[in-house]
């Protein structure tokens, strides 16, 4: 097949482009492909982490083995905030927004363990303001469980004091978060 661009040399580079669900095929010779920069993967770039990632994740999806065993296709998980699907994340190697971490939550653990030598939780710097909010949240949680106890014990006066304290903290953390 001749190159679609120069119509002179044989085409050796074949692209399949899917844009908004429409599929088109492009056949170019190497020279034209290189000149037509957007299609060309630079040497070195084609073996980046992002390409490796899809390999790593393939296994977690059941991957090659999952298909053979006749397992059901995994349900499409999407990030509620940015709409990125888990599949897209696997292909791109990048998250779309901060909420992706929660949307894909448990599925990320094996991956993070592999990348970070077994670790799945942060131990390090905590930003001051967010740190304050986190502390407050923990405080609120512990006060809430205390409140439940007081209610069960029918100690309503103490419960009311706790409720007011929780409200106060909640208002503070809301103000701090904006």
């Amino acid at each position, binding site marked *: 097949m001749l190159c679609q661009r120069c119509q002179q040399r044989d085409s050796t580079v074949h692209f399949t482009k899917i844009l908004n669900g429409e599929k088109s095929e492009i056949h170019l010779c190497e020279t034209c492909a290189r000149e037509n920069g957007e299609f060309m993967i630079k040497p070195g770039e084609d073996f980046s982490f992002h390409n490796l990632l899809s390999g790593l994740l393939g296994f977690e999806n059941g991957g090659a083995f999952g298909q053979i065993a006749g397992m059901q296709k995994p349900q499409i998980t999407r990030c509620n905030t940015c709409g990125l699907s888990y599949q897209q994340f696997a292909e791109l190697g990048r*998250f779309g927004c*901060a909420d992706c*971490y929660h949307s894909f939550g448990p599925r990320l653990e094996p991956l993070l363990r592999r990348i*970070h030598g077994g670790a799945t939780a*942060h*131990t*390090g*710097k905590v930003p001051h303001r*967010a740190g304050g909010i986190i502390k407050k949240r923990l405080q609120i949680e512990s006060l809430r469980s205390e409140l439940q106890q007081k209610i069960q014990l029918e100690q309503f006066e103490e419960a009311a004091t706790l409720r007011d304290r929780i409200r106060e903290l909640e208002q503070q953390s809301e103000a701090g978060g904006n």
Partner: protein
Amino acid sequence: MPIHDFVQDTSRWMSDEGPYSDIVISTRIRLARNLIEHPFPMLQSEHQADEVIERVRAAIGSPEFAEQGGGNFELIQLDTITGLDLKTLEEKYLISSTMVEHATRGAAAIREDELVSIMINEEDHLRLQVLLPGLQLAEAWETATRVDDLLEAKLNYAFDERFGYLTACPTNVGTGIRASVMLHLPALVATGQINRVLSALGQVGLIVRGVHGEGTEAIGNLFQLSNQITLGVPEEEVIQSLESVAQKIIEHESQARTYLMQESREDIEDRIARSFGILAYARRLSAKETMQRLSDIRLGIDLGVIKGISKNILKELMVMTQPAFLQRKSGVALAPGERDFRRAELVRDKLRSGAGHI
């Protein structure tokens, strides 16, 4: 400070000397940060990207930021400067190659002294970088975390109790820190010990790669050593382990240099003198040859074989002989062949203008 000051001259990390600067060229610390309520750069609209830039502009422009020692930054929107300026910033390590390729809606805030820069809308919303001469990991971390704190006072970072700082790529999540040192290891290469040293590093969670080289091939005997893991290891620990490993490598390299001078003094002196001769007189120099010969010159200075030349010649010339710098100096666009002429001219001038001799 206007853009032309950033692209005209050398940076302080190039011209200043630092601790262990006979072996350690530079120290770099990079922190990846993102803003909440904004999609990461990969998914954000132009409008959202501009908004991120404006938020950072407001943060670095606030009176508190300057008062508390953040320093004076100049914010440059990368789509407003020429391709040549862009490339020059990259050659000085002030912005990354990713930023050059996807410069639309990207910006760089560079501190006056060029030791600190903030890339905006790269892979993450913010990439804060501190670059110092010699081995100065603790100092670089101190500066980075201070500027980070001052930014955080004005910006809402995406942070999670469990995962830490949330980044676009899962390889950076947690601390978001990448600490690295650039090492000049000619004697470990010459004595064939380098592979043994490098293969041991993988076992302690560090990665090493050649500088400017493809794969593991190091041009000019320069190696970049950095941490790989960002989750579950506190920043101080990352820095301490990198520091202690760097110290060990420095020790080995020093021993190998002593060994070379004892066992094969004539060979090594001959190699250094030949490279001096070529750099001082050649009419055409490729980038690769320049780096290899400069490595010999630098070793020659360290071993006392070459006298009268500043140690910083390697750092300065490794940046100033890059294509964009050369082009700027000559004022016209240069084809790759012409660059080799200009490069040789520049190196020749630099080597022969001083009191360098053997």
